[in-house]
């Protein structure tokens, strides 16, 4: 004791040793600094999807004539429903131009498609028809009177002064696709009727889809557009796009609604299965639910002659030499 008490250096040494042990313990307890740890693995990109193919997969394309990208969800469900009912694995394809889809149907890259009336006419009226009708939808709203028909609505921005087509002289017009019936063929015929063929609009733009056309009008990138009444209805009903910012000043039509077609490369029995599943869909509770969500009453069988109206409008434009809206 006395030795310790008289030797302060020894005590300080002891204290130092104690502190070192404590520090070592703390160091160990807290673990090594973050910097020396191994770097965390980068989030690896998900592997590309390879859906299991039970039998030969067919592709079902949907053009922008329907509910466009906004309604992809419900039509993807419809495709799954058809897979379930027919036993044919179906891959759902969207986001392509009408022309591209037609090319794909023609070559058999896609075997079926919800397409616009005019692309159907173009496919069918080939000397060797490239597509056959499977069925066409009937919309629920009263405006469609339980028929497989639809309209082409002329929209302008909500706060714009325009009241009719004639007011739009020199303005910017936007269309979705050159071979769209509602977006191009019907307005073109309407302009022909009104004699507005000599460069009526100031500027004409292409949007790629009705949905995009509505957005451009709503955002002021264009002043007007003829759009598919189905797309407008769906947007208004679901409140998912820009339909609330535009108003309809006139409607063209009615005209034959876009059908579901089968590529001529598609086996007949597959086509028949799809057709049966579609036209009986409204009798099935699950099918009914999907139809309701898509605002559809049911699918019905249609004849090729149902699309003669479109043909005659096309012919009239060609005859008049008024093929491109100006």
């Amino acid at each position, binding site marked *: *004791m*006395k030795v*310790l*008490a008289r030797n*302060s250096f020894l*005590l*300080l040494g*002891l*204290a*130092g040793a*104690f*502190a*070192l042990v*404590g*520090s070592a313990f*703390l*160091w160990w307890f*807290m673990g090594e*600094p*973050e*910097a020396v740890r191994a770097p*965390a*693995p*980068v*989030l690896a*990109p*998900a592997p*590309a*999807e390879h859906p299991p193919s039970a039998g030969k997969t067919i*592709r079902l394309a949907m053009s*922008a004539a329907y509910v466009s*990208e906004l309604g992809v969800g419900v039509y993807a469900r419809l495709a799954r429903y058809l897979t379930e009912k027919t036993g044919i694995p179906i891959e759902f*394809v969207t*986001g*392509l*131009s009408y*022309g*591209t889809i037609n*090319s*794909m149907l023609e*070559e058999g*890259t*896609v075997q079926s498609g919800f397409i616009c009336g005019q692309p159907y006419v173009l496919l069918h009226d080939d000397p060797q028809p490239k597509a056959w009708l499977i069925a066409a939808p009937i919309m629920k709203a009263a405006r469609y009177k339980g028929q497989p028909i639809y309209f082409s609505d002329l929209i302008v921005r909500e706060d714009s002064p325009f009241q009719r087509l004639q007011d739009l002289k020199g303005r910017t017009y936007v269309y979705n*696709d*050159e071979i769209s019936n509602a977006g191009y063929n019907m307005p073109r015929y309407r302009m022909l009727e009104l004699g507005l063929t000599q460069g009526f609009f100031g500027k004409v733009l292409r*949007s*790629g*889809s009705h949905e*995009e056309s509505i957005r451009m009008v709503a955002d002021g990138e264009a002043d007007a557009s003829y759009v598919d009444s189905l797309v407008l209805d769906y947007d208004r009903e679901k409140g998912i796009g820009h339909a609330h910012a535009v108003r309809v000043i006139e409607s063209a039509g009615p005209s034959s609604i876009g059908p579901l077609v089968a590529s001529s490369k598609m086996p007949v029995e597959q086509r028949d299965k799809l057709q049966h599943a579609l036209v009986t869909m409204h009798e099935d509770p699950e099918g009914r639910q999907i139809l309701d969500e898509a605002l559809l009453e049911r699918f019905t069988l249609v004849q090729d002659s149902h699309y003669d109206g479109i043909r005659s409008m096309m012919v009239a434009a060609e005859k008049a030499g008024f093929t491109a809206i100006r």
Partner: protein
Amino acid sequence: MAHKLRQLLWPLLGMLALSIALQAASLVAVVEIDARVDRNRRYAVAATSLFDIVEQFENATYLALVGLAASDWEMLLRQRAAAQALAERFTTLSGAMLRGDGQGTLGELPPEGIQEPEALGALTALMKSWDKANVAHVRVLRSENHALKNNPELEEFRAASQGLSEAALEVSVLLQNHRREELRLLGLIQRVIPVGAFLLTLLLFGFVIQRIFLPFVASTEELEQSETALRVARDELERRVAERTEELARANEALRHAHDGLELRVKERTQELKDTQRRAVELARQAGMAELATNVLHNVGNVLNSINTSATLLGERLRALRLPPLLKLAGLLEEHRADLGTFVTGDERGRRLPEFLGKLGENLATERDEMLAMTEALHRHVDHIRTIVELQQGYAVSSSLVEAVSLEELIEDALRINGAALGRHGVSLERHIAPLPRLMVDKHKLLQIILNLISNAKYALNGNPPGERRLIVKVERLAEERVSVEVSDNGMGIAPELLTKIFQHGFTTRKEGHGFGLHSCALAARSMEGSLMVHSEGLGKGATFTLELPFRPDTGTPGQVTA
């Protein structure tokens, strides 16, 4: 001592608390920064992923466009699907970075979104760029394949994708920088903690040595010195304690002696008192016996008086017996012996002879009857005396003996003893005696009390005119174990102030009395576990003496002597 301890304890505790607080704060800081670094690491990784997704999305779109331009539809569809999947992943991941991965669907990301405003701004800008690029992507893929040359939409997509890449890179770089900064801070704190701990430990040791250890050594030396002093003091104390102990032992011994003497004297005194008591009891008993004897003799005297009177009367009657006429008749008949017939029939006196003889005979018969009655009375008086003597002998023999007694018979005996005197004084007697079973009692003492009470009553009635002297004897059972004997008279009564003195030794109102009777009666009553009480309305209003006794029914066992 306690004060000194506190002086040492508080700084020590203070330092300890400081040390703990420092360590805890450091640990919290390390944990917090660690968490932040980890979060930023995750975000940095996510940002890198976003950048990769953007690059892949752009590539897929360009490849899809190549497919479109070359009418390679399979390629178009494959690349577009890949772009769509990438778009979905971008939306999910960027949303999770913005709002946090609350559901934990991505696993890698923390549940809260990016907090740093700079990074947040960059991420928001990235998402805007994304929206623009995605719209361009959709539009350009909707172009017709023959219209791709000089397509403004293609240009638009090119510009948008360039902006998108830049924005993604910025987010990634910002988060990486942030992470690096926080890592530096963490390293700093981790280096500072051991140094702080070392300094604190040094401080603690310095304090312990300066304030506790050195004073302790010094006090140890002092303790050794004071221990010696204490030992001396303790020895002295022990010696004094031994002395005092011895003194106390001596005093104790003396006290014990005194105590023993005292005990002996107490025993002696107790014995003396016991003897005195026994003598007193004996005296009282003898006095009681004397009283009883006096009473008996008095009564015997009374009866002897009656015998004397009866004998005198008998003598007088015998002397007055009508013998002369008879003697005269006998002379007359002698005279006329010869001519008895003529005398009886012819002489006037002779003719009246039968009538005379008849009357004489009647007279003599009457006299004889009267004298026979007197003789009878004499016999009765003698019998009475014998009875009194026998009774007295009977009670005298049973001294202090408790035996089964009929209360009714005992009272009748007492009245019989007093019978002559009561009759002579013309005292009318009333009995109200409840029928009771025999009870265990000291017969002699009880008789003494009752005789005394009757005698007193008889005396008290002397002042009353004859015919108004009334004595009432009443026996009743008060309770299951209590019986009372009441002796009442309507005589001279007792003044209220004398009621309290009447049982005292030597108190009397009689000229020839010695004041012993009632006192010994009260003592006798008490010795039988009973009590004697008196009640009087006042002078001239009579008095009632009540003797209460425990009622012990005859148990059938032979008598037993009381202590």
